[in-house]
């Protein structure tokens, strides 16, 4: 404790912490205010704000694309706005001579097929499928001639890269296909690699493909990404199994639960996930996930019923805002502390049961229970939460989270001063305690603390802050008049 304090002390004085404090001597705030003032005073001189916009860089520029979408979409005729855009545009063109560059991006690398826009890489893969959806778009037979040309794998890849049509179907043997794949990988163009992979996926046996890909990691990763993207879960799992990447198998399968909306089905699915080859840590967590949802389903059914029956006071007074299904564990614990606090450990919905089943830490438990009970203004429960009895039967207050946190939470829930001051009194750090006590007007705590500190001057100063004739004033007076106290000042 002491060491921490020293550290803290050092900390506050070390330079790195000044990083974000605003120096008093050079008060930033006053500077900001000053410039604000100046700005505001100028408004009197310069009157029209709207006028200003045209010069200023601020606001959404008239004629920007997102602005124009709104404009052109909302009116059916040529909108006035676009005229503005035009104006603006002509000025921008005027200021930027076109001769700045005579290049166009596409002209550098692409041997683009000028009239070949119909032809895509995919046409090249399965030219026969073409007629299925658009027979009128079939090219005359003569145009297919290109396909018959015997391109080497290397040439084929290069043609694909530059967006030209090139049939892959002529690569029959496994060896040729692999050569093609290797060339594609060497070209680094993900699009072409995919083209070849899809071709291989279609024309090779799964096992053969997997085996070859195992030797070609780059291509393998592209395929995995593709399968993830397209949601081809089955093939993806097969592939991971083949590669013996069991953790990936487990995670991929687990991921699927996100798509299941129905709680019961999701639960069953998670149950199936428990046996999957997760790492040992994850395995315990997935088990917890399942158990939690299982509990939530039971609690939800039960509470829905209770709420509908309108017999239970707590549900009548505080109707549930949402279902508890699929909520995180801590939220569930809060819920349980809110609606099921007094239940015995035996019931699934009791806080104690949740704490035990999921090995929730004391800290987490106390924080959550405190927040829930404070929200209900159940101050008696709050009191019980921190009261421990030792073996002699004496009671003592203890908080695993520190009493300053207790005070914060109580205060956030508008606890009355009588409740608050008991906990303010227990705050360990004297300075924090005094701050809290003054902020929340816990006079007794302030007075007692100054008394303990033997700080007569502060106590006298505080006397001016309390109401005339109040019990607090009387108390201060009696202390100040007590001759037994040896004041330090």
């Amino acid at each position: 404790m002491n060491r921490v304090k020293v550290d803290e002390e050092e900390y506050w004085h070390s330079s790195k912490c000044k990083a974000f404090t605003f120096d008093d001597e050079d008060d930033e705030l006053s500077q900001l205010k000053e410039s604000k003032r100046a700005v505001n005073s100028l408004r009197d001189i310069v009157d029209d704000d709207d006028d200003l916009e045209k010069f200023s860089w601020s606001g959404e520029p008239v004629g920007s694309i997102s602005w124009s979408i709104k404009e052109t979409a909302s009116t059916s005729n040529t909108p006035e706005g676009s005229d503005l855009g035009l104006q603006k545009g002509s000025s921008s063109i005027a200021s930027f001579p076109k001769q700045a560059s005579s290049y166009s991006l596409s002209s550098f690398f692409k041997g683009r097929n000028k009239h070949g826009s119909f032809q895509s890489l995919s046409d090249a893969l399965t030219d026969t499928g073409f007629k299925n959806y658009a027979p009128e778009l079939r090219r005359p037979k003569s145009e297919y001639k290109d396909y018959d040309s015997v391109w080497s794998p290397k040439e084929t890849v290069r043609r694909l890269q530059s967006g030209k049509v090139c049939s892959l179907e002529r690569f029959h043997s496994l060896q040729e296909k692999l050569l093609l794949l290797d060339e594609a990988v060497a070209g680094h163009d993900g699009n072409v690699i995919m083209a070849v992979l899809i071709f291989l996926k279609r024309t090779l046996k799964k096992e053969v493909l997997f085996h070859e890909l195992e030797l070609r990691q780059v291509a393998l990763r592209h395929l995995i990404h593709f399968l993830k993207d397209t949601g081809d879960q089955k093939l993806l799992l097969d592939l991971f199994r083949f590669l013996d990447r069991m953790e990936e198998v487990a995670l991929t399968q687990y991921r699927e639960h996100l798509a299941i909306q129905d709680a019961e089905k999701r639960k069953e699915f998670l149950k199936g996930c428990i046996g999957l080859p997760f790492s040992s840590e994850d395995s315990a967590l997935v088990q917890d996930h399942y158990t939690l949802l299982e509990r939530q389903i039971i609690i939800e059914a039960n509470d829905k019923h209770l709420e509908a029956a309108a017999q239970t006071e707590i549900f009548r007074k505080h109707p549930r805002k949402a279902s508890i299904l699929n909520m995180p564990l801590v939220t569930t614990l809060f819920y349980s502390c809110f609606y099921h606090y007094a239940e015995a450990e035996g019931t699934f919905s009791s806080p104690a049961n949740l704490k035990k089943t999921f090995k929730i830490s004391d800290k987490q438990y106390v924080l959550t229970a405190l927040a829930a009970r404070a929200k209900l203004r159940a101050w008696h429960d709050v009191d019980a939460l921190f009261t421990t009895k030792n073996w002699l039967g004496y009671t003592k207050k203890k908080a695993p989270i520190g009493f300053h946190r207790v005070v914060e939470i109580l205060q956030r829930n508008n606890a009355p001063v009588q409740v608050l001051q008991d906990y303010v009194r227990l705050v360990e750090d004297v300075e924090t305690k005094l701050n809290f006590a003054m902020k929340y007007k816990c006079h007794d705590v302030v007075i007692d603390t100054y008394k303990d500190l033997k700080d007569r001057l502060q106590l006298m100063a505080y006397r001016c802050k309390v109401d005339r004739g109040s019990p607090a004033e009387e108390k201060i007076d009696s202390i100040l008049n007590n001759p037994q106290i040896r004041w330090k000042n």
Partner: protein
Amino acid sequence: MAAHLSSGRVNLTTLREAGRRELREFLDKCAGSKAIVWDEYLTGPFGLIAQYSLLKEHEVEKMFTLKPGRLPPADVKNIIFFVRPRLELMDIIADNVLSEDRIRSPQRDFHILFVPRRSLLCEQRLKDQGILGAFIHREEYSLDLIPFDGDLLSMESESAFKECYLENDQTSLYHAAKGLMTLQALYGTIPQIFGKGECARHVANMMIRMKREFSGSQNPVFPVFDTLLLLDRNVDSMTPLATQLTYEGLIDEIYGIQNTYVKLPPEKFAPKKQGEGGKDLPTEPKKLQLNSAEELYAEIRDKNFNAVGSVLSKRAKIISAAFEERHHAKTVGEIKQFVSQLPHMQAARSSLANHTSIAELIKDITTSEDFFDNLTVEQEFMSGVDTDKVNSYVEDCIAQKHPLIKILRLVCLQSVCNSGLKQKVLDYYKREILQTYGYEHILTLNNLEKAGLLKPQTSGRNNYPTIRKTLRLWMDDVNEQNPHDISYVYSGYAPLSVRLAQLLARPGWRSIEEVLKMLPGPHFEERQQLPTGLQKKRQHGENKVTLVFFLGGVTYAEIAALRFLSQMEDGGTEYVIAATKLINGTSWMKSLMEKLEPPPF
């Protein structure tokens, strides 16, 4: 509108102009009136290339956002879809096309423009939906590197980091290499390439290979860049996790800057005129563009936030004085001169007003207790304090259910600063997180482990202290007002990535071989032959130009640090920055989190 792009050492207007030209070429291919249906994500990046006016000149009459259902009516000949190559978008397009009323509405031509690359997968998808044949033009628009500012380029590829480091899919690296080839075509071959990391190695390989393949087809251009430095994001995964403390960095951390625009809560921007008494508060967020075209912003964007206030107040005095001048203007000529300056002064005033408001908004947050506590813990981790045990602040944050991303940033930062967490500590954090936020986050935690951000300490050795000391990543004597070292951008922490760039320029990486070996991936150097006659003869005292390319994203604080190095008097090197994406810790974490809603197909 793009003057700021030519303000830097390298004129990036050329790149923008090339992009505009290609766009015009494509639009002209689809003869007649047109409507564009936009993948909403693209409107931001496109806005940096072209405004509506350019489209309008090429007969674009309507623009819509891509969404399922029937397309809104539009009396145009062509419907063009501008989309990223994503499967889910193909399904929406299919829905649009299939619900066209063929009988009642006149026949319209469909086209697709894929950005930045055509994709076989997507075309296959369209084919499966039976509509591939409906498109007359299917083309790609290689918007790889988009100019954001005079010294800044981004690919705005959200998923690049995830693809590279989680999926090991190098498609975005291919795009990066393509983008670099475009740059070289416009600005000349870059003679020296340095790199650190697996992805850097790949990109360099691809560039060299592409160069071989396209040799001959290139116009001889005098080289503008001297050096290219390729850096893997996972060589320095620490920097984005920490909270940026520059003005621009904080705007991004708090409000998120998208394609140079930021949306701010409107309250502080309400026009306060006398007698109106605060009625009609605007409810729409205030949208501002942030770039170096604005003089004041250019001055303060890269400063530590603590140094911003004094600049603003100085500015205020200058502007006030300028307006006071009007009292001294006696002759007609003087008055005329004053009036002629008014527009400029008004713009300056408006700019000052905006930034004063933004600074106030940010200050409300940076002075909050929680911001301070969070920063304190980050700085403890980065300076190597207590990284090997459970941190009580992190514990508290979990208990109070602070946003999960905040927790993950802190825990990952601790892990990185400790070369992995002790198994016991890691297990504890994992358990607390899953119990509080839901077990399904097992998947996200696994992703973070795979990406190396959150891991158990396997070697039993913590290399971080050595790295920190050798690279001087933690500076105790930081000066935020008048910095003399890049560490000012994080008020003490010098971003590792930028330190590597700095040390490369002087005295060279040979001095830090040992540390380089501790960081992931290979480091390397390549040279590219320049055509004869194009060798650069440097004028005496002329600075070198280095392009630093961050594979996996760059933060505004790192950009600020590089700009700081550019401006150092005896620095000798000026930097241009490129990245797959402009990121901050939050957007980065988000890209690694498992999407928890079911997939749309």
